[in-house]
C-alpha cells in the first residue's frame, strides 16, 4: 500500500476505451453508486422534511401561534421563542468546550508524548470507552451521582466569587443548572476532542521533534516549538467537532438541567436556560398539531447550526491535509 496518497495510481480507474462491461459489473457499479447517491439524498431529505414540517409554524403570525400552542406566550413570534433556546444551546456547548478542550489537549499529549509507549494504546482505548457510554447513562450519572458532589463546589463559587456576574448566587441545591449540564457535556465531548487531537499530534514530523531535542530543548519546549504549531489547526477542528456534538446533545441536558427561557448568564441558578435538543425531547411527547411543527422548526435551527459548525471543522481539517506534506 505505498500508493495510498496517490489517486492516479489506482488500477481500477475506468478508462474511456474499454470493452463493454459485463452485466454483473454494471449492476454492481450502479448499485454502489446508487448507495452513495442515496446518502446525499438522505441528507437533503433531512433538510427538506424538516422544512416541510416546520412550515405550518413559520407561516402563522404570533397571535395564531399563541392560540395554537399553549407554551408560547402572547405576542411572541417564532423567533422570540427560538432565540433563548439558541442562546442556551450555545452557552451550554461553550461551557463544555471551555472545560473539555484544555483537558483533552492534555490527555492527547499525555497519550502521544508522555505515556510509556507500551501503555499508550491501552490508555487511548480507555479514553475511547468514554465515547461508548450511552448519553442517557451520562444523564443518570450526572443527575444522581455528580450533582450532590458539585453542590459544595458551586456553593463555594457563589459565596467567594459571587461578585463576578456569572457566578452570582445563591447556588441551587440540587444544582440543576447549566454549569452542571456543561460539565456533563464536557465529559461527553472529551473523547472526540482527545481522539482527533491525538491523531494530529502523532502526525508531527519526527524530524522536527528530533531536531528540537538535539538543540537541547526540554520535552515541553520540544512540544511547544514543534508539536503545537504543527497541530494547531487540527486541534481547532477537533474542538469544533466537540462543539458540534455538544450543541446537539439531548438526554444529558434534559436529565440534568432545570429549564428556563431567558437570555441569562447566571450559570449557578436553575430555571434560566434550556437547550434546543432537550427542549424538543421534553415537549415532543406531549405536543400535538402546531406544537409539533414549532418543535420541528427549532430542530431545523439546530440542524443548521450544527451543520455550519461541522462543515467549518471539516473544511479546516481538509485544508490542513494539503499543507501537511511535511512528512
Amino acid at each position, binding site marked *: *500500500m505505498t500508493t*495510498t496518497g496517490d489517486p492516479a495510481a489506482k*488500477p*481500477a*480507474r475506468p478508462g474511456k476505451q474499454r470493452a463493454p462491461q*459485463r452485466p454483473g*459489473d454494471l*449492476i*454492481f*457499479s450502479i448499485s*454502489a453508486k446508487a*448507495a*452513495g447517491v442515496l*446518502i*446525499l439524498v*438522505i*441528507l437533503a431529505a*433531512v433538510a427538506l422534511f*424538516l422544512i416541510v414540517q416546520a412550515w405550518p409554524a413559520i407561516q402563522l403570525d404570533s397571535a395564531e401561534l399563541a392560540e395554537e400552542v399553549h407554551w408560547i406566550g402572547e405576542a411572541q413570534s417564532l423567533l422570540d421563542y427560538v432565540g433563548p433556546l439558541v442562546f442556551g444551546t450555545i452557552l451550554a456547548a461553550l461551557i463544555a468546550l471551555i472545560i473539555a478542550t*484544555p*483537558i483533552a489537549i*492534555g*490527555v492527547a499529549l*499525555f497519550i502521544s*508524548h508522555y505515556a510509556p509507549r507500551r501503555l499508550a494504546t491501552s*490508555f487511548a482505548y*480507555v479514553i475511547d470507552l468514554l465515547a*461508548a*457510554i*450511552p*448519553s*442517557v*447513562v451520562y*444523564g*443518570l*450519572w450526572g443527575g*444522581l*451521582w455528580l450533582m450532590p458532589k458539585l453542590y459544595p463546589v458551586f456553593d463555594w463559587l457563589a459565596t467567594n466569587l459571587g461578585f463576578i456576574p456569572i457566578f452570582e448566587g445563591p447556588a441551587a441545591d440540587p444544582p440543576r443548572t447549566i454549569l452542571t449540564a456543561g460539565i456533563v457535556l464536557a465529559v461527553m465531548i*472529551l473523547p472526540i476532542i*482527545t481522539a482527533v487531537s491525538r491523531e494530529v499530534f502523532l502526525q508531527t514530523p519526527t524530524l522536527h521533534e528530533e531536531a528540537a531535542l538535539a538543540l537541547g530543548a*526540554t*520535552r*515541553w*519546549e520540544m512540544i511547544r516549538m514543534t508539536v503545537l504549531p504543527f497541530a494547531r489547526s487540527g486541534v481547532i477542528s477537533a474542538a469544533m467537532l466537540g462543539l458540534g456534538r455538544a450543541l*446537539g446533545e*439531548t*438526554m444529558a441536558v434534559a*436529565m440534568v438541567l432545570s429549564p428556563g427561557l431567558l437570555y441569562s448568564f447566571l450559570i449557578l441558578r436553575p430555571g434560566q436556560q434550556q437547550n434546543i435538543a432537550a427542549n*424538543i*425531547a421534553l415537549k415532543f*411527547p406531549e405536543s*400535538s398539531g402546531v406544537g*409539533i411543527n414549532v*418543535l*420541528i422548526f427549532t*430542530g431545523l435551527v*439546530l440542524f443548521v447550526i*450544527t451543520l455550519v459548525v*461541522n462543515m467549518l471543522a*471539516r473544511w479546516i481539517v481538509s485544508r490542513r491535509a494539503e499543507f501537511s506534506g511535511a512528512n
Partner: protein
Amino acid sequence: MTDVQTPVDIEASLAGRKLTHGKLPRYTPMAVFVGSLVLVGGLLAVLGSFSIPLTVFLGVLLHAVVLLVVTRMVEGGRAAKDRLATTLMYSAFGLALIPLISLMWTVLQNGLKRFDLYFLTYTMRGVFGGMDAGGAYHAIIGTLEITLFATLISVPIGLLTAVYLVEYGPTRLGKAITFFVDVMTGIPSIVAGLFAYALFVLFFGPGVRMGVVGSVALSVLMIPVVVRATEEMLKLVPNELREAAYALGVPKWLTIVKVVLRTAAAGIVTGVMLAIARIIGETAPLLLTVGVVNSANFDLFDGRMMTLPVYVYRQYSQGFAPNGITTINYDRAWAAALTLILIVMLLFAVARLVSRFFAPKTGRR
C-alpha cells in the same frame, strides 16, 4: 585591539558559572508526589476533614509547587517548566479517568441491586407506585429489534457506498459523498429523530409511533459510521490482491465481492459492531419516534415499543415513588443502565476479538 581581550572576558564571565548544572535523581517526581500525598493526608486527618478527593486534589497541587521550586533551584527554570508541564499532562489524564471510573462504579454498584433474571424477563405491565416488581424485558426486546432493523438498513447502504468510494476511484461525486458523510456524522441524534418522524407522518398521519420509525432514525446516525469504518478497511486491502484477480480475468464485481470484501471482512464486522454500539444507546430519537409503553410489543410495524435507553430515562424522570420502595424507579433506571452498558461492552469486546483474530495480514504490521 579588543580581540585580545575577548578570551579574558569569557573566562571572567565563566568564572561564576558552571558548565554543568545539578540533576535531580530520576525518582524525584515520584518521591515528591508520594510525599505530598502523605503530608496533605496527614494534615487533613489531624484537622479532621480527611477525604480522598480533597487529599488527591491538594496533594497534586502541593506536588506541582514543590517539584517546581526544587527543580528550579537544582536544575534551573527551563527544566522546572518541563516538570510542570509533565505534571499537568499526567493530571489531565487522571482528571479524565475520574468520570469513567466513577460512572462505571456507580452503575455497577446501583445497578446490581435489581439486576437479576427477574429484571431481564419481566415487563412493566401492571406495575405502579413503589411496587417491588417490574423489569426491562420489553425494553430489551425493543432495543434489540429496532437496532437490528437499523443495522439491516444501514449496512448494505454503508457498505456499497464505501465500495463506491474506494473501488470506483476518486470521482467528484465521491469527494462530495466523503465530505457529506463526514458532515452527516455530526447530525444531532434528535434531528435524526425529527426527520424520521416527519418522513412517516407523510404516510401515516400525525402522532405516528412505530418501531420502524426509530430504526430509520437510527440508520441516519449509523450509515456514516459504517461508511467510514468500511472505507478505512477497504483501503487496507493491498492492491496486489486486486491486480492478481484482474490478471486471472475475474470480473471487477466478483473481485470486489470475493477478494476485497472477503479480505476486509473482519475489519468490516468490527466496524459494524462499533457502529451498533454507538447507536444502541441513542435515546432522544427513540423517545420521539417509538414512544413509551409498559408491555412487550414484538411488532416493529405496529404501535409503540419500549427501548432500554428510553426505559432508563422514563424511570429516572418518574422520580421517587410515593409509597412502597421509594427509590424503586431509580433502582430500575440503574439496572437498565447496567444492562445497556453490558450490551455495549459485549459488542466492544466482540469487535476487538474479531479484529484481533481475523484481521487481514497486510504485512505492514
